[in-house]
């Protein structure tokens, strides 16, 4: 299937604002579906709630549209009950990392074989640009008009520490690199995670002097560093940079594979008349 064929044509045009990064990320995902020959029948796209959480409206595969923050928990049940499915979970930074932060670290630790793609636009787009758990220090949002006093999560670092099998971070400016990360993540057995830094010109951009989408893209470009370059920076310098690249790519048996052994042992114990 061609990338465009995964799109639900009658739902176009997209609901997202002009210049929003969500469309670029969705397109990259669908191109990966094409390359991997994903069938509509064997794929489930799971979303939470938020602007990015509406991505499933446009995808012509099986879908599950759940509640804010819980997409990974729905995805865990979907995958464990049928390990043959390709389960792709799409979440915003509020969705996936703030309200849903607990599920994110536990899905990574459990190493459930799903791919989570968080579009991190550094704020809550859907509800009007309030600060999220990833909003950078001192940035302005509709609920941090005097400058945000908290520090944002390093999401990729968090998920890596929690035990994910695959972790990468890219931006909508470097869409080719981002697509490569998504492609790798989808192929990875075990919990794979891609953080896509993306622009929300309508809220984050407007309040932080980057009204035009291109201004935000340039901001990403100018402040991006590779993982190796980041190693030379101080903690402070690093906080103001987008550190991009592949953080984790390891072999680690996934939950479903391990559980097959539990089933085998349990069946034996039953036969042995436990």
């Amino acid at each position, binding site marked *: 299937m061609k990338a465009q064929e995964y799109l639900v044509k009658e739902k176009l045009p997209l609901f997202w604002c002009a210049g929003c990064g969500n469309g670029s990320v969705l397109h990259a995902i669908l191109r990966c579906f094409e390359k991997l020959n994903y069938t509509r029948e*064997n794929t489930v796209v799971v979303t939470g709630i938020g602007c990015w959480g509406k991505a499933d409206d446009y995808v012509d595969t099986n879908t599950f549209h759940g509640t804010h923050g819980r997409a990974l*928990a*729905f995805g865990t049940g979907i995958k464990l009950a049928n390990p043959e499915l390709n389960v792709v979970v799409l979440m915003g930074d509020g969705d996936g990392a703030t309200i849903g932060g607990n599920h994110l670290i536990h899905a990574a630790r459990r190493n459930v074989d799903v791919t989570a793609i968080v579009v991190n636009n550094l704020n809550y787009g859907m509800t009007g640009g309030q600060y999220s758990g990833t909003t950078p220090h001192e940035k302005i949002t509709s609920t941090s008009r005097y400058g945000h006093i908290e520090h944002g999560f390093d999401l990729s670092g968090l998920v890596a520490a929690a035990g994910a099998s695959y972790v990468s971070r890219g931006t909508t400016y470097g869409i080719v690199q981002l697509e490569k990360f998504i492609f790798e993540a989808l192929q990875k057995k075990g919990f794979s995670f891609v953080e896509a830094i993306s622009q929300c010109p309508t809220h984050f951009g407007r309040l932080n002097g980057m009204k035009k989408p291109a201004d935000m893209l340039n901001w990403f470009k100018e402040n991006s560093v590779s993982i190796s370059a980041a190693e030379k920076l101080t903690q402070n310098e690093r906080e103001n940079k987008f550190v991009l690249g592949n953080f984790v790519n390891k072999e680690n048996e996934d939950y479903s594979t391990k559980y097959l052994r539990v089933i085998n042992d349990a069946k034996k114990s039953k036969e042995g008349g436990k």
Partner: protein
Amino acid sequence: MTHKQDIRFIQGNVAMVEGAIAAGARFYAGYPITPSSEVAEMSSIRLPQEGGLYVQMEDELASMAAIIGASASGKKSYTATSGPGFSLMQENLGVAVMAEVPCVIINVQRSGPSTGLATKPAQGDFMQSRWGTHGDHGIIVLSPSTAQDCYDLMIDAFNFSEKYRTPVVFLADEIVGHIREKVIIREIDENKIVQRKQPKCKPEEYQTFMQDEDGIAPLAPYGSDYIVRLSGSGHDNKGFPCSRPDNADKFIRHYTDKIEKNYKDIVKVRKYNLEDSDITLVTFGGSTRSSLEAMNMAREEGMKVGVLQLVTLWPFAEDEVKEVLINSNAVIVPEMNLGQMIGEVQKLNDYRTPVLGINKVNSEPITPKEILDKIAEVKNESTRVFG
């Protein structure tokens, strides 16, 4: 399923697991909490023996979400919790209603609010089981009073869930969950196990929420030839978001109607000595046990006391309750809360029948003696004629 008939001496909580397995459940996701933990423990042992799966999630929000996801993938699924855990499940319980995904939620009630008295019995979640999740919706709630019920009724819970494409709440309480009794693990006739309706149309014609003539939409599992679009947001027949007022109205009424209109199929009650009862006890769950004992004691003293046990709590057994209101000189509602079910009984009381409550919230069960005292009081004070 080859379930040989087997007689065991087990806890209600354990019987629930056997009932779930006999009903075809093969997926459990949960977060342990007293007094429901034995359901989790036994599920972790028994499910893999049947090729099923147990997963302990990080909290109850995730547990509820995971069983919905597993059910969407085609596995009959359930979870168990108590008190605070049931509160946490309410948001995603709404998803199961809205997306019409079958699943069973066991709530072994304990004292509350908040953490309350963790190991003590109560029946304070009667209303929460009906109205807990936000918005208008229908719900099916079943309530066991014996360990045997925990087995038998659990099969009904899954059957209703599959038949009506809806979550079903299994509202137990600590008394029933922890009681150890003889339980017959019955041999189950395969034909009595309900599987959700599967689509018969061509895959390209399938719509996830398109109702058949009986008002229930077939639900294919993820991974079949059919494309399934499930959503907890307002949606059209295809599962795409839809905020048209007429569509919203249609679906929200549908969630209630598919249950209320099948009242006769869903509502189960048990009648004890109602043929000639002057004073009738209307009960549910663990309180039924003391009520039956009180009834027997009263009968020995020559008083005509009967018991109407509500096995299905929602939809509410209106016809049966009206009948006892008409035929009794007084109705007593013993419940381990400050009066949740009695309100429903009073709503139906167009007959000016005295309706009295026995309400106990000190974390101890209502005793037969307390019920007997109430019966005596009613008999002495009532102006009605007692035959």
